[in-house]
């Protein structure tokens, strides 16, 4: 029983069903098993949770209808909005980025022509790490895994001809996120956009970087302060913008299991909310703009239950732990991406099928936006063709299957509801443990999340090697000779792109007013010294004067220091 609500099925009903189940087990089931045993002794989910043969209302225990409820109403188990895809389909948001800004701009225009409804930018490693393209550490990496952005000129070119008031833009960027947000805002201002009409997201989830994705610059505490500053600044200036996208995706891809993905992500969310409310900003003034990002893995029903469980757990945390009052502060909205690490090099066309099934789970779990991976992900960043196939996969789900007709169609499945209950209970168990370690930051410093992830990843590798975890084309149904019909063409980067970007950056540096840049960088450093100061205004001023990302990062390094990891494996 929850919130004083009556259980869906009362004690008598559940006892009667259990008695009937016992009779069935002794009767039909026992007779059948005697003739034909089951294929395995134990059936497990991807999170290694044992599952029963069949589920009944008796499995729901004290679950009340109010725990499931209605979409768009607390606790949001069934979705953040009352009509879900009947009102609007999820945003089909394929990530793209390579080479120089003008090259990625061309890919964006292509994707918009193909019917894509939102943009998502992938940056190259130097940009992700806050380094300028001419830094010697960046040799060979400029524009390779994403687009290179050094100065505001690059940002201007990246969105040339794209209406920033009508298309939402997501930027996958973390330790240097605040600088790119500053550039984005500065470009929008130049164009005369109304900042309150800008919609989009920066990932800006630094805590999961220390846990999983491992892109960092400064130590944890000052990095958390930067995230705080972006959230507080956005709450005052960008009414429709999500200043953080709290991400489980990387936790899963780095090896975390299903429970770890959502539990660690919510532990990070708790840390951000605590950090921002400590400034005196009430939770309801920024929580509506917190957004989330999860993977969609292969275990179909567990994934659907995962999305439902994380929505419900978040609603309860925001209401009960942080005293949120506004419904918008309690409803979790998420972007989903299919699981890149599940894609194989062998028989690459199989990846289209894997991706389609994972995408369907995300849709049945109520995702607000979705990226489907390219079939060639295990080879290189995707070709235009691979991205088009991935987008078509989403369009087929949206327009041919009718799964969008009904909200939360798996709600009420005794199996899915039981999994939802179990996953939610596990989340709170882990959150209690994190609290007992002294909170999220202390738990990261102690390597708690990192070790759990490494252990699970190693176990998965062993199970794949033994064949216990089946991967079609890799450890089952293997083809010894490569199938010419499945040859993939890989994306090839223009080898001159890096040199051009470096030259361009140098040209910008030579032409700008250096005195102004020096003064603004000094002011930024001063702002950093005062922990109560918000870094956004000084950063926006610096990017407008064409200060580069690397210069801005370095201006704060003296104050903040550098993060050094103690790796665990």
């Amino acid at each position: 029983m929850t919130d004083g609500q009556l259980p869906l099925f009362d004690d008598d009903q559940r006892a009667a069903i259990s008695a009937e189940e016992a009779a069935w087990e002794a009767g039909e089931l026992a007779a059948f098993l005697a003739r034909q045993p089951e294929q395995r002794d134990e059936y497990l989910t991807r999170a290694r949770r044992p599952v029963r043969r069949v589920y009944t209302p008796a499995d729901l225990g004290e679950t009340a209808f109010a725990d499931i409820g209605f979409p768009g109403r607390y606790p949001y188990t069934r979705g953040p909005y009352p009509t879900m895809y009947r009102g609007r389909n999820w945003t089909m948001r394929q990530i793209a980025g390579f080479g120089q800004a003008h090259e990625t701009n061309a890919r964006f225009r292509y994707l918009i022509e193909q019917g894509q409804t939102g943009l998502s930018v992938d940056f190259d490693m130097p940009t992700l790490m806050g380094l300028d393209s001419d830094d010697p550490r960046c040799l060979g990496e400029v524009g390779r895994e994403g687009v290179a952005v050094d100065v505001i000129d690059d940002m201007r070119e990246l969105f040339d001809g794209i209406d920033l008031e009508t298309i939402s833009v997501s930027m996958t960027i973390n330790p240097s996120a605040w600088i790119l947000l500053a550039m984005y805002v500065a470009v929008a201002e130049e164009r005369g956009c109304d900042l309150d009409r800008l919609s989009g997201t920066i990932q800006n989830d630094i805590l999961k970087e220390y846990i999983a994705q491992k892109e960092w610059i400064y130590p944890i505490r000052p990095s958390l302060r930067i995230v705080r500053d972006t959230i507080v600044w956005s709450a005052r200036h960008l009414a429709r913008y999500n200043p953080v996208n709290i991400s489980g995706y990387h936790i899963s891809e780095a090896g975390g299991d299903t429970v770890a993905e959502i539990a660690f992500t919510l532990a990070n969310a708790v840390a951000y909310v605590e950090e921002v409310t400590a400034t005196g900003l009430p939770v309801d003034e920024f929580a509506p703009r917190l957004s989330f990002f999860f993977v969609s893995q292969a275990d179909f029903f567990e994934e659907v239950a995962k999305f439902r469980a994380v929505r419900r757990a978040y609603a309860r945390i925001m209401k009960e732990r942080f005293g949120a009052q506004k419904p918008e502060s309690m409803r979790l909205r998420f972007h989903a991406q299919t699981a890149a690490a599940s894609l194989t090099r062998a028989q690459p066309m199989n990846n289209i099928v894997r991706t389609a099934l994972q995408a369907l789970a995300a849709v049945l779990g109520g995702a607000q936006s979705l990226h489907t991976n390219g079939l060639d992900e295990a080879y290189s960043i995707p070709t235009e063709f691979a991205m088009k196939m991935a987008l078509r996969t989403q369009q087929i789900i949206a327009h041919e299957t009718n799964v969008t007709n009904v909200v939360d169609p798996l709600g009420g499945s005794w199996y899915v509801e039981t999994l939802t209950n179990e996953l939610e209970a596990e989340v709170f168990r882990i959150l209690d443990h994190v609290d007992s370690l002294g909170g999220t930051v202390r738990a990261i410093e102690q390597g708690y999340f990192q070790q759990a992830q490494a252990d699970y990843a190693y176990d998965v590798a062993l199970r794949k090697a033994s064949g216990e975890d089946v991967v079609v084309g890799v450890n089952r149904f293997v083809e010894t000779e490569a199938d010419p019909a499945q040859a993939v063409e890989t994306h090839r980067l223009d080898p001159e792109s890096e040199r051009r970007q470096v030259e361009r950056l140098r040209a910008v540096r030579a032409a700008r007013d250096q005195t102004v840049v020096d003064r603004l960088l000094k002011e930024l450093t001063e702002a950093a010294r005062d922990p109560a100061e918000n870094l956004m205004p000084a950063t926006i001023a610096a990017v407008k004067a064409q200060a580069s990302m690397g210069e801005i990062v370095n201006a704060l390094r003296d104050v903040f220091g550098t993060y050094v990891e103690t790796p665990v494996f």
Partner: protein
Amino acid sequence: MDPIRILVAKVGLDGHDRGVKIVARALRDAGMEVIYTGLHRTPEQVVATAIQEDVDAIGVSLLSGAHMTLLPRILDLMREQGVGDRLLIGGGVMPDEDVEALKALGVAEILGQDTPPAEIGVTVARLVNEHRARAGVGEAS
């Protein structure tokens, strides 16, 4: 025979360390002495550590796509600094033609995605032992 000593390194800027940690653990489980550098190492740092630790082999993991720049750079540095006789093994997501090109340059092996942990140990042991036999240093102690 002396236990195999191997330096496992992440070069370049990418932070994908799921694979390298599995490799480090698999090699440790196979009885080797494993030194893991952590993330974001430069080729210079990797080669300097390899010399200092006197390893039989260097395993370099990268998923940034910069393998055609960074692995040849490490080979050059190894040769320049007198450790060109040690093995360089790569790991990560790389197109087939790059794998061939890297082997032609002198990279001993590329371990691809989803190489089973036990196979990693066996492959590295085989490569090191063949190499020791060729160099006539294999059967010591």
